[in-house]
Every structure is written in structure tokens, then in C-alpha cells.
């Protein structure tokens, strides 16, 4: 019923979605941890915007709450915490990758195609105005997975993890206008606790290995 007036909204949503995808690619290519955090904050912002848009267009009130939650957590709190962390740990730099950037890019591209192919038939049957973005959400998830694989520093892996969570959130909003509120809250809580624990971890790892480089964490193995 809202198709006649939601045309531009869909346009805008697709734009935001593609920005999201772009940001993930950027994350995949960045070397500096600080940049990654900035990009993560941007991702959160885009997510906030798209959520508000969906909330407005679909008239789902509780989506506003989760949008606010997003703004609070993913744009303000977490980036700030992470900034503090890397500053205290002196881990701004992350200039070693397991795979060089062009290859990563190519793999990422393949992943995006795969994700679209996967999401295409499903998004057809969705009755939300945001259905086309499901594929992008999946792509974001897979890309951040890829990023976790290719990075060597603990912090960057965590950022990848959070980015993946962003992708999930985006998927939730785009496919189903968001999960039920209780679940949203639970997810958010878990996320918060996770980051808290991560913080503890970083310091413990630092005091044990005086570095956050992952190749210290390779002693438990079979041979």
C-alpha cells in the first residue's frame, strides 16, 4: 500500500546498502587499525540511518528503539572503547596481512557474487520493501568473515567480528523488519558483554605476551 510513496525510500535504502558493502570492502583493504575502527563507526552510522528509514517506511515503532541502540552502541560506545584500547595497547598499526590485498579483493568479489546468487531467490519471496538488500547483508557477513581470516592482530579480528554482527543486524532489519525486541536486547547485551570480555582479554594477552600479535597465540597445536 505504501509502494507509491516508498519509491524513493527504496532507492535510498539500496544506496545505503551499497555504501555498507563499500565500507566492508574498504575494511578488507585497510591496514591501519584506527582506520578500521573509523570505518566500523561509519558502518554503524549507515546502519542507523537505514534502520530509521525502514522504521519510518514500515511504521514499526520498536525499530526506532533498535536504531537508537545501534547509534548508541555501534557508533559511539564501541568505537570509543576500541580507540581507547588500541591507544593504551599501542596497537594502532597492523601492516601485516596473511593474504595480499588484491587477492583478498578478488576473493571478496567472488563472495559477493555467491551471496547474491544465494539471496536472490529468497529475497523474491520477502514482502518487505528492503528485500533486495538481503543479499548485501549476507555479503557483508561473508566479507567480514574473510577479513577475520586474513588479519593477524587480535584487535582487527574483533573488529571483523563486530562488522559481521553489523551484517547480521542489517539482515535482520532488511529481511524481517528486525527481530522481536527481547531478542534484540539479548543480542545487544551479549555484544556488550563480549566486548567487555575482549577488553579484559586484550590486557591479559598483552601482559602475558606483551603484544597482540596472533602468532604468539599459536603454541597449542598438534605436532
Amino acid at each position, binding site marked *: 500500500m505504501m509502494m507509491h510513496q516508498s519509491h524513493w525510500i527504496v532507492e535510498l535504502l539500496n544506496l545505503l546498502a551499497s555504501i555498507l558493502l563499500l565500507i566492508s570492502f574498504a575494511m578488507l583493504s585497510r591496514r591501519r587499525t584506527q582506520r578500521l575502527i573509523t570505518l566500523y563507526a561509519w558502518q554503524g552510522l549507515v546502519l542507523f540511518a537505514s534502520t530509521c528509514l525502514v522504521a519510518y517506511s514500515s511504521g514499526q515503532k520498536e525499530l526506532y528503539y533498535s536504531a537508537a541502540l545501534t547509534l548508541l552502541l555501534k557508533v559511539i560506545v564501541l568505537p570509543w572503547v576500541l580507540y581507547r584500547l588500541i591507544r593504551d595497547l599501542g596497537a594502532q598499526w597492523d601492516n601485516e596481512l596473511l593474504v595480499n590485498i588484491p587477492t583478498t579483493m578478488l576473493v571478496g568479489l567472488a563472495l559477493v557474487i*555467491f551471496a547474491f546468487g*544465494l539471496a536472490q531467490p529468497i529475497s523474491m519471496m520477502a514482502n518487505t520493501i528492503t528485500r533486495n538488500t538481503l543479499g548485501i547483508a549476507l555479503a557483508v557477513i561473508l566479507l567480514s*568473515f574473510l577479513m*577475520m*581470516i586474513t588479519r*593477524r592482530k587480535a584487535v582487527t579480528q574483533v573488529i571483523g567480528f563486530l562488522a559481521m554482527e553489523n551484517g547480521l543486524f542489517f539482515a535482520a532489519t532488511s529481511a524481517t523488519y528486525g527481530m522481536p525486541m527481547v531478542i534484540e536486547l539479548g543480542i545487544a547485551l551479549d555484544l556488550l558483554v563480549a566486548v567487555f570480555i575482549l577488553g579484559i582479554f586484550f590486557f591479559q594477552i598483552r601482559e602475558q605476551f606483551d603484544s597482540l600479535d*596472533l602468532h604468539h597465540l*599459536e603454541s597449542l*597445536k*598438534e605436532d
Partner: protein
Amino acid sequence: MLAHGTLLLQAHDLSWTLMLVLAWMFLGVIGLLRPHSLRFVARGLFPAGAVIALGVAILGGVALLSGHAPQTMVLPLGLPNLPFHFRLDALSGFFLLLIGVSGAGISTFAAGYFRSGEGTAPGLLGLHYHVFLAGMALVVLADDAYCFMVAWELMALSSYFLVVSQHHRSEIRQAGFLYLLMAHLGAMCLLFSFGILQPGNWQLTFDAMRATPHTPFWATIAFLLALLGFGAKAGLVPLHIWLPEAHPAAPSPVSAMMSGLMLKTAVYGMLRVTFDLLHVQFWQWGLLVLVLGLLSALFGAIFASVKTDMKRLLAYSSIENIGLIFTGIGLAILFEAAHLPLFAALALSAALLHALNHSLFKSLLFLATGNVLHATKRRSLGALGGLARTMPWVAALALVGTLAIAGLPPLNGFVSEWLLLQSFLFTPQLSQPFINMLVPLGAAVLALTVALAAYVMVKFYGVIFLGQPREPALADAHDANWLERLGLAWLALGCILIGVLPQIALRAAAAVTGQLLGSTISFASPWGWIAPIAPKQASYSGLLLLAGTICVIGLTYILVRVLAHGRMRRTVPWDCGYPWQTSRMQDTAEGFGHPIRHIFRPVFDMERELPSPADKAPRYRIHVEDRLARIVYQPVTRAVQRVSDAIGVVQSGRLAIYLLFSFLTLLGLLAAVL
């Protein structure tokens, strides 16, 4: 089901048997009350166990000869849809008899045998011992796959603990490990076999399996798996590898039980599956079993003749005898497949009789080695000799076992081997021409084996008990105590009795063949003739043979004494003009092995060190291993080792790799559902 109704009406024999089995377990458990008191356990519990064994034997005999219908019983144990089923029929009765008779002798012996301070505490030993006995009895009584497997593994487990009772020696731990591993693999094969035989949906009772028809393919698979499983337990070549390690490692009564009784449970299982659970037999199965049996027989005999450790020698001879038993089974399958039930019955009775005989004389000999071991602390034949003078009782009773296992008339070993040869004679009746060509060769191999067994036993007895003691320490070896003598005498008596009056045992076997094949051989005649097919074809009478021998010998003795004289003087033996002979110049066990090593060279892996002529104290050492084990098993272990080395990279310790694994798994599965 039906059994519930009949439980009280006709199953009293069976319930009595189960109570006796329970009593065995109970004995084992109360042994734990005073685990360290040897007097309580050995002098108290083991004789009681012997009495129970007698009871079991009697009940088994009753079930055999009172040929009424099989008794079944169901206990509300086990799985919800599959309670424990028990069944006492002729087949199980026969093996109960076997277990009971030999078990009684062994338990009596064990009562006098165990000393304190040998490995595990007596109480624990008693527990394992009696659980072992109970397990074997339950294997024979079980009537559903689950109950059977539980009893089967209980048997394996308790015997394992008995084998490692002196676990401070690493080679004994090795032997125990190998034993349990092979037992477990065999048990899994049996599980698969039962899985094929069952009609499905909780129907794992033997009755259900009997009622299920199978396609030839699946029947064959089930048969082969059963052959693997039971063959591993019986020590058929090439699954024998554990046997010569485990049997010698155990204390002698346990070795006796493993060789004499436990191997027979494998025979029981083979018969149960082949003739009872499976409806059809194919002659190819028979051929396979026949070939395996003959191989094992010859292999065991050859290795027994080159081994110099007395218990190891006996273990190999067990492989030989198991081979003979399986030969009989193979022939029975061949005949049954060719619809010649009478000849099948002949072969099967031979196998059963030999199982019974082997349980008697092998236990006897193992127990005798136990006495020698206690008296001299030596196991190597090279260090023994002349014990007949210091241990007359053991020597005399062991002689009976030796002659019996060598297959000499009029003792029991001969009867079963004679029957086996007889059944070989009828193979020309088979339809497949090339089997007709093949089987006489089998008979020849059999004859070779039997003759080799005689060779081995002359070596065994002659080197241990005859000649001069090879070490001065042997002079003060002590004889067996009265309990041990009783046990030995009981077994020896069995050997003689079955040898002289084989039709007693044959009547028991006939009940089994009647049940499994629906036909029995004819043996009934007052003077103890056995003429399995027809008197004109072949006949034998141990009783008359013994009587004749005794008469002739007595007559000769009297005549010689009457006509000639009894004058005699003791002198030193003639030294062939070489006055410096020592007892070490007697022929040794290695010497006895020499011709065999010479003739059957390709079978062995030999390394020997010859002394140099200039050597002041020359020592000749030869080490013989069987090539087969190396060929079959080393590649397996090497392959496992290689694989497990190779897959170490999976756990490389790098988080990125782990993430990559789950990533790829995810993508793969997504592609699968795409």
C-alpha cells in the same frame, strides 16, 4: 512372549544353570571382602568354584542327554525392547559340559596354585577368574545378540585383567593390550554380523534371526564377519597374533582356561551362527573354513616345534588344535552344502569331540607347566630337564596329556583325529570335482600336522621331564601339592576315559549334530566300537585296544620273567668313549627345532648368531618370528601412524586456519543446498 509362560513349567534346568552362574559371580564378589587373604580366597573360594563347575557340567550333560525341547527364559534386564534371552539346547549343553568339566579341574588346581605376592591381590584375581567363568557360561546360554555380546565382552575383559595380573612387566602389558584390541575388533565384526542377521526394529533375538531369510549375498557377508569375529577369538591364522603373546603371559590356570575353554566359546559361536542362525550353507564357505583351519593347524604345529618357551609352545599348539577343530567344521559345512547330512554329522562330531579333548589335555599341560614354573622359576626349555625324577606326579600326569595331545591311541586325542580323517575319506562323495582333488591334500596336511604334533610333544615332554637336569638348581624342584595333583588327575582321567570309551562323548556330540544337522552317526555298541558309517568301512575300539595292549604286555612280561630271569645291575650310562659328557650336551629344544627350520624355512623370520670356534664359552642363539604377522600387521600400523602424522596439520594452532575451515565448511554446505 512364549518364554514367560514356560518359565516355571519346564525351564528349571536353565534357571538352575543361571543360578550357578550367578553363584560364580557371587564367589568372585565376596572374594573382595578379604582381598589380601590367600587362605580365604584360594582355599575357600576356588574349591567352591570347582564344585559349581561340576554342577554346571552335570546340568549341561542333563540338557544333552535328556533330549527334550530347548528351554528358554527371559530376564527383565538389558534393553527395554530387548530383555536378556537365555536358551539351553543341545549345543549350549555340550559346551556347558566342556566348560564345567575342565573348569572343575582347573579350579581345583588353582586352589592349590596361587601364591601370595604374585601381581594382583588374590581377591581381585578371584573376582576376575570367576567372572571369566561366568562370562563363558553366559556366552553359551545367551539367546539374543545383546546378551551374547555383553557376555562375550565380559569374558574378554575379565580374561584381560587376568592376563595382566602381573602388570609390572612391560611385555605382559603389551600382550594384554594386543589381546584386548584383537578381542574388541573381533567383537565389532560380530556386532556387524548380528546387525545383518537381524530383521530390524529391535528384533535382535536369535529366534528372530532364525526366522529371517537372507539373500545369499548378505548371508555370505554375515558369515564372513562372523568368521572374522570368532576367528579372532579362536586364533585362526592370520588372526592368531595375540594368542602366543597373551596365553603365556597369564598365570598358568588362566592360560589353561583361555586355551582350554575360551577358544571353545569361539567354536560355539561359529557353530551357532553357521548351522543355527543361518539357514543355507554354501560349499565355498566350507572350503574357506577348511583352508583356514588347515593353515592354522600346520602353522601352529610348525611354530610349536621351533619355540623354546614351554608356554609359548603350548599356545602355538592351541592354534594347531583350533585349526583341526575348524577343519572339521569346514568339512561339515561342505557336506551339509552337498546335502550329505550323515557325513556332515561325522565331521561335526569329530570337531566337537576334539574341542572337548583339547579342553582337557591342553588344560592339563598348561597346569603342568605351571607346576614346573613354580618349582623351577624357569620357562625356557633350555634351562629345564630331568624333572621326572624330582616331580614324579606331575611327570606321570603330564605324560598322559602328552600322549593324548600327540594323538596316540588309546587316548582321547586319537579318537577325534581318527574321526576327522574318516570324514576326510568321504569327500570324494562331493560333487565339485576340484574339491575332490583338493581335499585329499587337506587330509595329507592333516596327517602331517598330527605327526608334527607328536614331534612337538616328544620335544616338550622329553626336554622338560626326561634326560639330565640342564641346571643344577633343578635338583631341588618340588612336586605338586595335593590340590594341584587332584586337578591334574581329574583332567588326565578325562583324557583316558574319553579315549577308552569315546561313545560317551560321542553320544553327547550326537545330540548336538541331531539338533544342528538332523542326523547323527552310529556309535552305539556294547563293546565300545565306534563304526561311524558302517563297521565294514572303518571301526575302532579304544577299550579293546587298551585291553589287548595290557594283556599282551602283561603276558610278555610274565613270559620274559619266567623263561629268562630278572637279574639287573645299575651302571653309569655308556659315554660312547667320551668321558667328559655334561648334561648340556643333550639335545636341546633348539636342536629339536632344527629339522623343522630346515624343512619349512620360508615360513620363518630367523636371526641366529653362531659362536666362533675360538669362543671359550660358546653360545648358540636363534630367534624365530613368524613372517605372517609381519606381513599382515605391520603395514596396518604403519598406515595408521602415517595418517595420524599427516593429519596433524589440521590442528595447526593458527586461528586464521581454523576460521578458514569453518568458512569453507559454511560455503560448501551453502553450495550444497543452493
